[in-house]
């Protein structure tokens, strides 16, 4: 008997909020500084030092909550999560346990096949990051760097709504795009600005209960999430099919070997002795604070998608891709605002621009072609100054030059032949020069027309419109 297994996946994302200073101290947040130079009395947990909540972190959390349509707590509590670790200077982490700042919300996740999955977000809470233990720098000793200690984190927890590794990775990617869209995180995965934990279990297809789960910790790329979860799904199915049992545990993904392995053995659940931090009063979020955050928010991707469909008459799928991150959307909007046709602009941005970015390993935050250049290109295509072939030519030029599209067209004489007389003269001369082919065509070999079109294009240095040439030839040869 063959069981079909269904994976069940939920993820937790730690989002480092891009605040000026730390969540409970005035120390500026800075990645890559000399060890321990970005740590003040509070970050070092000096005796007598006290935390003071950074309002900017609260505003960013509220922003995220509003963006996923979640309820924002009117009053929420900061708790102490107690455990000993050398890079946790106070011996506890200030976090939120029972009353997170952001309640239940929804996230639309776009999958590669163009479909959309609605994923429920369980909650998001504020907490402080720990420092770093450095094991490889001093012989026989561990170094402690507390620069990161106190960096604000928003921990976003999803429901176990995902059914494949690809969905889990897409969800991570969508959250990444959203926090970048909201400008609350720099999204730099390599520097650990977003870290993903994945909870994975499998169950026989059709079951509604959950299998025992494992948690893969600290995955820092979309691709690794997909690989790690896939590995874990296969590992669990393999164990179950051999009559084994899944052990609840924390696992780590090793990218070089492409496998997950157990971080700790089986143990009793940790007792973090959560209780409300008496150094911080309950946080009250007033309606006016919420309203002011809302007023400072950019248009959300979902709203923008609807607007693109309504205003520009483009497909939902195209609009979804245009709003999949803020840089693309901004690029598109700027191009259209400069008078370029929306649909044609969208095709260029998602087609040629995307391909070129991909080729050069760049992204939309860093497109070398300005919106003005692209808008001009699209306009010259639209008014038939450029043929589509020449447009690609010009695009290649502006990819590495600031020159204006019109200057390039004029300098290189690329203006499409639109003058009817000039074009028919050119066609006439090609017909005269190729009597043999004309005979063949008249004899029924209509395919040869293509050859003549090619000759006209060559003679016009690509400036003629091939369709127009085709029509003229057919009329002239009466076929």
């Amino acid at each position: 008997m063959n069981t079909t297994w269904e994976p069940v996946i939920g993820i937790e994302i730690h989002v480092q909020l891009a605040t000026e200073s730390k969540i409970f101290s005035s120390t500026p947040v800075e990645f890559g500084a000399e060890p321990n130079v970005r740590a003040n009395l509070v970050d070092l947990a000096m005796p007598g030092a006290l935390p003071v909540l950074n309002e900017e972190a609260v505003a960013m959390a509220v922003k995220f909550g509003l963006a996923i349509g979640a309820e924002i707590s009117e009053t929420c509590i900061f708790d102490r999560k107690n455990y000993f670790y050398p890079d946790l200077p106070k011996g506890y982490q200030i976090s939120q346990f029972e009353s997170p700042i952001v309640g239940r919300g929804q996230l639309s996740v776009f999958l590669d096949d163009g479909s959309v999955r609605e994923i429920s977000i369980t909650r998001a809470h504020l907490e402080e990051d720990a420092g770093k233990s450095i094991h490889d720098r001093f012989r026989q000793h561990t170094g402690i760097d507390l620069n990161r200690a106190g960096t604000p984190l928003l921990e976003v927890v999803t429901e176990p709504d995902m059914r494949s590794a690809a969905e889990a990775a897409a969800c991570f990617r969508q959250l990444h795009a959203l926090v970048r869209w909201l400008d609350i995180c720099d999204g730099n995965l390599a520097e650990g600005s977003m870290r993903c934990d994945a909870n994975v279990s499998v169950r026989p297809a059709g079951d509604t209960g959950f299998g025992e789960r494992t948690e893969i910790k600290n995955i820092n790329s979309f691709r690794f999430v997909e690989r790690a979860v896939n590995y874990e799904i296969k590992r669990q199915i393999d164990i179950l099919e051999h009559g084994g049992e899944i052990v609840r545990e924390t696992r780590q993904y090793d990218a070089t070997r492409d496998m997950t392995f157990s971080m700790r053995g089986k143990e009793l659940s940790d007792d973090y002795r959560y209780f409300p931090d008496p150094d911080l009063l309950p946080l009250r979020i007033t309606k006016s604070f919420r309203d002011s955050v809302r007023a400072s928010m950019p248009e959300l991707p979902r709203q923008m998608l609807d607007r693109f469909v309504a205003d520009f008459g483009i497909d939902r799928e195209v609009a979804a891709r245009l709003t999949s991150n803020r840089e693309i959307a901004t690029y598109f909007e700027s191009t259209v605002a400069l008078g370029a046709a929306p649909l044609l602009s969208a095709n260029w941005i998602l087609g040629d621009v995307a391909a070129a970015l991909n080729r050069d390993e760049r992204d939309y935050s860093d497109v070398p072609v300005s919106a003005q250049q692209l808008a001009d290109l699209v306009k010259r295509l639209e008014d038939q100054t450029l043929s589509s072939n020449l447009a690609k030519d010009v695009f290649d030029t502006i990819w590495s030059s600031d020159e204006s599209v019109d200057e390039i067209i004029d300098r290189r004489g690329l203006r499409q032949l639109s003058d009817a007389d000039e074009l028919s003269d050119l066609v006439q001369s090609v017909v005269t020069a190729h009597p043999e082919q004309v005979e063949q065509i008249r004899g029924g070999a209509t395919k040869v027309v293509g050859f003549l079109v090619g000759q006209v294009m060559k003679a016009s240095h690509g400036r003629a419109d091939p369709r127009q040439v085709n029509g003229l030839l057919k009329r002239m040869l009466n076929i």
Partner: protein
Amino acid sequence: MQELRRDLHDRKYSATELAQFYLDRISAFNDRINCFITVDEEGCLERAAEFDSQFGSSTTQPLCGIPIAHKDLFCTAGLPTTCASNMLKSFIAPYDATVVKRTFDKGTVSLGKTNMDEFAMGSSNETSFFGPVRNPWNLNRVPGGSSGGAAAAVASGMTPLATGSDTGGSIRQPASLCGVTGLKPTYGRVSRFGMIAFASSLDQGGPMAHSAIDVYELLAAMEGHDPLDSTSADVSKTILPESNQSLVIGYPEAIFDGLDKNIAGCIEEARAEFEALGHTIKSVELPHVEAAIAAYYVLSSAEASTNLARYDGVRYGHRAAESEDLIDMYCKSRTEGFGLEVKRRILTGTYSLSVGYFDAYYLKAQKIRRLVRDGFLTAFENVDLILAPVTPSPAFEIASLNKQPIEMYRQDLYTIPVSLAGLPALSLPCGFVDGLPVGMQLIGPHFAEGAVLGGGIAFQNVTDWHDQHPALEATLGS
């Protein structure tokens, strides 16, 4: 202190001479009484000389040139801050506590740091790593705690002003046992920034001195909103009321059960004094007072257990010399660094926060805390102040209770409910029993320090209990 200020102003003596006078008393008596952990002779004389050199120019601060002693849990940049613990015996803070900074800015001259119970956990000053403080009125008796060093230093004339801290009675009880005046302000009145935490939701720094008027002046220098302490209240400064206001003073007779008969007699006399001053006495009920002690020890220990987690030997404080691995280093450092009472509280606190016990202990204690607070708020609907005892007995003998933690905890029976409610209370002397001073408390509604101090000042205008001083020269020689 009023007199010192006048004399300094009249140039009867210089700030240096004044500082030297106190330093001389410290060197004469501190060996026996042990109320200072660190004496900052050099810093003190330097600062006093500064005032003398600029006398008459810019020295208009209210406490200009007046000596002060800080309890050794207020961080002082450059001077050890030990919390009377082996854990921090060589800890030098890189910064000043807000209280230290503010009193400095008001012109005080710091003599040094006073002894206390380790991490402020104790009611007798016997848990100090630096040895017990002795009561200046009788050297075989305890001075009370945890601000025992501060109270003894004021009582023995080693400083005119002292800072203390009160979590469950740590200013009021030693003030009472040493015959000095001390105020536990409303929770949030005085910044906790730089005051090493014992139980964050209860800890409150406050002033200690000979008289209520001096206490008021020191409070004025300490109080005020501090953006570095999220629990610090943004309220207006304490203002003393007009004199001759007639108040209704609550008298909770029911809680006098178990009180030493002679102390009850002293309180009775004080009550009559208040009536003579034109105030009305009204009986009030304070429910849940018995349950308050248990709730207090659960909550304060729970908070302490995590407040003290930072003393792990990693960044500062005591680190064991040899250890096998990380866990071994934690265990040894903390075992060696903390004393018995501190360990007891960390263990109880850890237990009450653990899964399976949290509801029965921590949450229940929070409920009791709310009931106690509500009880006081109800009482204050009908009265302006409440008059109550501070301690169930006068100063007890050293080593008589230190093996009986529960008995020791009961010393705070009358002070703890006030702490749980976060209220201001002034402890001031009101008589003697067997040659030992006893005090009483004037408790007020939240942020009514003005009324509380006004009541104390009025009482001290017509009594002289606060002007009694132990005859140290006679008992110890000078």
